């Protein structure tokens, strides 16, 4: 009884488990994407839209449960916003996967290595986001985790500058090939921005009841 009163109701537990699952799926999708890029494996790439659909369905369940009364109203809008931001990361990952498929999984050697490095940073950031979310249940300092995410994001920004410079010096086959490469880099580098936004929202949620 006391456990239920002081350590969380059924609705809240279900929602937090689903949010955790949502972030875990983001991590799995980022891992699939990185493998597909490294190994030029189309099968690996297909798991990204599949995982996005699964995550979308979980997002709907989370938002419904919150508006059915889970958590204090003061927290609800921030939690929903956090889940929507994570969903945006899925969308950008799916966009990047779609463009990668369109270019036949082959990138110019000059840029491929940088893209794999960015995909790896995205993977680490999603893992760190999951660790950051878990700190909401314990006594660990959330600021350390959000700081790590910010550092990863800064590294991605630095790689992006180099990448754009290299791309501008690369010859493209035609307009559409150039556009697809440009879109691919935009989507890929946007993922880290979105994960950083999500970690900022975690910080807001964490301090909102104090």
């Amino acid at each position, binding site marked *: 009884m006391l456990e239920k009163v*002081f350590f969380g109701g059924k609705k809240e537990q279900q929602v937090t488990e689903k949010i955790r699952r949502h972030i875990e799926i983001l991590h799995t999708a980022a891992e699939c994407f990185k493998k597909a890029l490294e190994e030029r494996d189309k099968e690996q790439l297909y798991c990204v839209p599949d995982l996005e659909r699964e995550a979308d369905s979980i997002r709907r369940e989370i938002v419904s449960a919150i508006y059915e009364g889970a958590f204090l109203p003061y927290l609800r809008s921030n939690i929903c916003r956090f889940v929507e931001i994570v969903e945006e990361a899925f969308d950008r990952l799916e966009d990047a996967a779609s463009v990668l498929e369109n270019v036949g999984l082959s990138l110019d050697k000059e840029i491929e290595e940088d893209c794999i490095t960015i995909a790896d940073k995205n993977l680490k950031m999603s893992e760190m986001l999951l660790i950051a979310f878990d700190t*909401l249940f314990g006594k660990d300092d959330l600021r350390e985790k959000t700081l790590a995410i910010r550092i990863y994001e800064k590294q991605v920004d630095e790689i992006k500058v180099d990448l754009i410079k290299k791309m501008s010096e690369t010859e493209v086959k035609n307009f559409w090939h150039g556009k697809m490469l440009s879109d691919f880099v935009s989507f890929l580098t946007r993922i880290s921005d979105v994960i950083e936004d999500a970690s900022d929202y975690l910080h807001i949620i964490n301090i909102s009841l104090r």
Partner: protein
Amino acid sequence: MTELIPLAACVLIAFGIGSNDTSNALGICIGCGVIRLQRAILLFGCFVVLGILLQGQKVMQTVGKNLVDVNLPIMSIALSVSAILIILSNWKKLPLSTHQVIIGSLAGAGVAAGVAVSFLNLLKIVLSWLISPLVAFFTALFLYRAMEKTISKLSLFRIERILRVLLLLSGILISYNTGANELATIVGPAIHSGLMERTPASLIGSLFVFLGAVLLSRRVIETIGKGITTLDPFSGFAAQFGAGICVLFFTFLGMPISTTYCIIGGISGVGMSKGMKTVKMDLIRKIIANWFLAPTLAFLLSYLIMKIIA
């Protein structure tokens, strides 16, 4: 037949308390989804009955016996004037304290009738009106600081859970005070004038508070419930519980004091912990003006009507 006038006035005021004060007590809990409306009303009713039966006696004695030597004409005029003023203030959306109106009316009618009015007790009551918001201010401030040093250190989801329990406790305390202090102020004169016995008067008073809550509180609660999404439950609890403790303390002393003014004191206390600029001084000035206006108006009206009739 003339006995029906004060009884009808009592019933009206009790009904008004039920319709308005349920939201004071449990509006936040309903808005936060801590408890459903029907359960909240039932809980409110139960704690009003408990409050008046367990602890209403001292306030009843102060208002009905120690302040004015109450008789039927005084009670008829004082409670009728109070009921009319409270209904008018609700209609015009001007917040008047039920306690201040009743005490002002009883004193006005008593002075006009030439019966013994204990000015010492009146002074004690007025002093308690002055001191109680300050006590609530410091209690809420202390509570907020204590919560910052204890609960605030816990993990987010545990804070959320604890706040739900604390908000419910706070609502229950305010419901209890509604019976022990507010309802006791209304039925006190009826009991000490010999119009009714204590237990039936308390139960009938509680019944009409409950009826007011069942029939008319829903809209007020919905308004508060919608508005609460923008409130911070952490400071909201500190202000409400600080006020609740303060009212309970004055109930022990037998002083009829306003929960609303204590909540205002509590909110100011929490606001002060975040800096003087967060307290809206214009609003505080309006509340102070109202604080003077309500008992003065009730006193003068009852005095004049009593003089005219007598």
